[in-house]
């Protein structure tokens, strides 16, 4: 009956969301939770059908394992109370070991499912290439699995819940349905944000009544997201598909333009989706964590990754980077290194090892492919370089009397970071690593402006008008970003204005989408880019 391609489908925006909102608005609190859960499972079912068992299994298992951990913890406390101080350490160690076993089992289970479903085809095909290379006459059958939607997102949520219970940051939840809602809440199941139990579970369960302000703010944010996606991301799609599909036939200049366009598309698609997701949740009075914080104002790559796909970054930081770099062997390494190479470079070594792991995971999380891995390594390299070079830059700029806080220096940093990000996205999008490298090379070896002079540039999928409207829309978004950067809440400002002006804002957004949206004959909407990760 339903067929959702993305949150930007009529099915979601015209049916599922409004119907859920209406039911939610008129039912008592206890029923509201049920409405959210039913809508969530309906949504999942509509997209992935029977594969919903994976989600159900994950939910059941974290519920069970969470309680298991909690039993061990209470056991431990009881035992500690009755033992003398000298023996406590021993008991602690014993229980820690128990908990670790449980955690290892849980992590292997959840990450194992994800790895099996997502990476066996990649692994198998690489094994085959290797056998081929070594002239071994065996070939592994390449299996293919149907991936349930959002598995890369909810698996991370599941693991974070268990880790938080294990670390006693949160108590294990007795309530299976609260966990189910935390795992499957429909606006975020497909593309995140990756939530923490402590952030959203209780908010969702509370199911507050709908407030007028939340409703209007939510709708505004949804409209803004739809604008980003339909006016910009979808309009860029044809050009990007054409050039990335057949990069051989375009010169370096076109590739450069398209590289920037793809970065813009990725940002607009993903942050537009996040606007829609967070806006949807806001209608229900749920505050989801932000996933973007104007990433293109970043001065360094490391800062960029704190402002782009934030929830993924913090997940990796909290559950991979710090545990690794603070683990005993690496701590010892740090201590030794600090004595030899000083305070700045000492921690860098163990940091680098942990960072390396993070970026291998980050690259592979995006997909099973060598170019994703390359993408991860590229950013790992950039961040590491940035950290190694940093003290020298500080010294150099100090000697040259360059004001590191001056506007132009900041601007230079921002532009540089932007360029580095664009290059990374080129490899990210390229169909295979080799094509990516070819395209990159072309920007230097085959750079001419002829397509701009003879106007051919405007025949590759976007004409002058398309470029113009994308530019105008980007200016609007840029202005909004500057306001946000200054900490001004635009929606609160709008709410304080007279009704005519408020209406004008809605009308402008809606009509801009109706007129300038890239839908209808001749347009192919972007597949939800992040949903396939």
């Amino acid at each position, binding site marked *: 009956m339903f067929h959702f391609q993305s949150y930007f489908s009529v099915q979601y925006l015209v049916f599922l969301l409004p119907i859920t909102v209406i039911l939610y608005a008129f039912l008592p609190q206890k029923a509201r939770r049920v409405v959210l859960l039913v809508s969530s499972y309906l949504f999942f079912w509509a997209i992935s059908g029977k594969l919903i068992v994976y989600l159900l299994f994950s939910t059941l298992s974290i519920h069970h394992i969470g309680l298991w951990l909690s039993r061990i913890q209470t056991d431990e406390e009881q035992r500690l109370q009755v033992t003398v101080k000298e023996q406590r350490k021993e008991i602690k160690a014993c229980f820690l070991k128990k908990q670790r076993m449980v955690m290892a089992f849980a992590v292997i289970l959840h990450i194992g499912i994800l790895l099996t479903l997502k990476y066996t085809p990649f692994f198998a095909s690489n094994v085959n290439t290797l056998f081929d290379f070594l002239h071994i006459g065996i070939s592994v059958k390449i299996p293919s699995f149907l991936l349930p939607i959002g598995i890369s997102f909810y698996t991370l949520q599941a693991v974070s819940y268990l880790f938080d219970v294990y670390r006693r940051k949160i108590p294990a939840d007795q309530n299976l349905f609260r966990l189910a809602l935390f795992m499957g809440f429909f606006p975020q199941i497909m593309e995140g944000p990756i939530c923490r139990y402590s952030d959203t579970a209780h908010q969702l369960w509370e199911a507050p009544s709908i407030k007028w302000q939340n409703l209007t703010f939510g709708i505004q944010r949804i409209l803004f997201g739809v604008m980003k996606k339909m006016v910009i991301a979808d309009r860029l799609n044809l050009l990007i598909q054409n050039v990335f599909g057949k990069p051989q036939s375009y010169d370096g200049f076109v590739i450069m333009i398209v590289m920037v366009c793809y970065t813009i598309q990725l940002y607009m698609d993903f942050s537009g989706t996040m606007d829609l997701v967070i806006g949807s949740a806001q209608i229900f009075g749920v505050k989801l964590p932000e996933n973007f914080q104007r990433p293109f104002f970043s001065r360094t790559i490391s800062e960029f990754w704190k402002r782009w796909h934030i929830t993924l970054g913090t997940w990796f930081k909290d559950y991979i980077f710090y545990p690794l770099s603070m683990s005993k062997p690496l701590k010892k390494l740090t201590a030794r290194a600090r004595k030899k190479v000083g305070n700045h470079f000492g921690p860098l070594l163990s940091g680098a090892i942990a960072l390396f792991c993070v970026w291998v995971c980050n690259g592979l999380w995006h997909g099973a492919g060598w170019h994703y891995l390359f993408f991860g390594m590229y950013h790992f390299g950039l961040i590491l370089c940035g950290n190694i070079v940093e003290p020298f830059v500080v010294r150099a700029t100090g000697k040259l009397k360059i004001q590191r806080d001056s506007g132009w220096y900041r601007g230079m940093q921002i532009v540089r970071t932007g360029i580095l990000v664009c290059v990374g996205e080129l490899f990210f999008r390229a169909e295979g690593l080799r094509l990516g490298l070819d395209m990159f090379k072309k920007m230097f070896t085959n750079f001419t402006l002829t397509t701009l002079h003879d106007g051919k540039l405007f025949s590759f999928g976007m004409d002058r*008008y398309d470029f113009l409207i994308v530019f105008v829309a980007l200016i609007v978004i840029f202005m909004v970003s500057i306001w946000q950067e200054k900490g001004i809440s635009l929606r609160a400002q709008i709410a304080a204005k007279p009704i005519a002006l408020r209406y004008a804002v809605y009308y402008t957004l809606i*009509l801009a989408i109706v007129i300038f949206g890239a839908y209808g004959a001749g347009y192919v909407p972007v597949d939800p880019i992040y949903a396939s990760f």
Partner: protein
Amino acid sequence: MVYVKRGISVLTFFMGLTIFLVMLSFLFVPKNNMTEFGMEEVTANGILGEKENTIDVIVLGDSESYTSISPMHIFKETGYTAYVCGTSGQQLSYTKTMLHRAFEKQSPKIVIMETNAIFRKVSTVKAIVAKLSDFFSVFQYHNRWKSLNLNDIKGKVKFTWVNDFKGYQYRDGVSSGMDKDYMKPTDEVAGIPLLNLNYIDKIKSFCDENGAQLVFLSTPSTKNWNYSRHNAIRQLADELSCEYVDLNLLPAEVPINWNRDTYDKGDHLNYSGAVKVTNFLLKYLGKTQLLTDHRSDPAYEKWHDSLKKYEADIAEKLK
């Protein structure tokens, strides 16, 4: 009190939005039925330029329809006037739009529905956009913001362009398709999507209301047609009490030679195939006794001009 106030403000908001959409629709609707004016599918929409109440038969459908039926050939032989409103990959949402458009100025007595389009699943988005476009054409023509000019603001809609081929699209070349067994009898019945059935119902009742006879026609195609589809349409036609003609089962009347009469391996017919289908169709139309010969009617003088151009054009192409 707060609820009343909010209710009223929401209501006024939507009224305002409706007014804006109506205004924009006036602005964006193509002012003529030519590509330069922003009209889509001009060969099919050429019907909008035809003189009032001059078309006897319209044909709806996808590419099967406009490659298989040549209205000018019918006119030459019988004096009946037909127009093919088929478009490439037509979905029934657009079929319905074309039907309504055709009946604005015309009152055809026979509506022929080429059956291949009935199996093409209408996407929900298309259906909703089509529904919205019924009220606000800005949803369909929004992309014209690129070519708006002064004329769009003050201009009235006036369709002036006529198509000398009356919707037929000439195809030549031969690429034979040798699937002789494609009509092997079976009891299987192909499925028709629910939404599509809904559209067919609407199309049928529209024809009934306007006194037109709906006829299902399956043109020859080894790629698109088979017996289970035949069964499905047979059933549908019986339910709706429509006529159904499947040319794939009439090799004696429509002797398609799959070695010569198709340009893409049995998918579509070329000109020689189209002549065979049209020859059958004009006899079929004659038998209905609903239509009159307009060849000596002075009101149809323009059709003779078109016929001359059509024949010259075809002769040129056949060389």
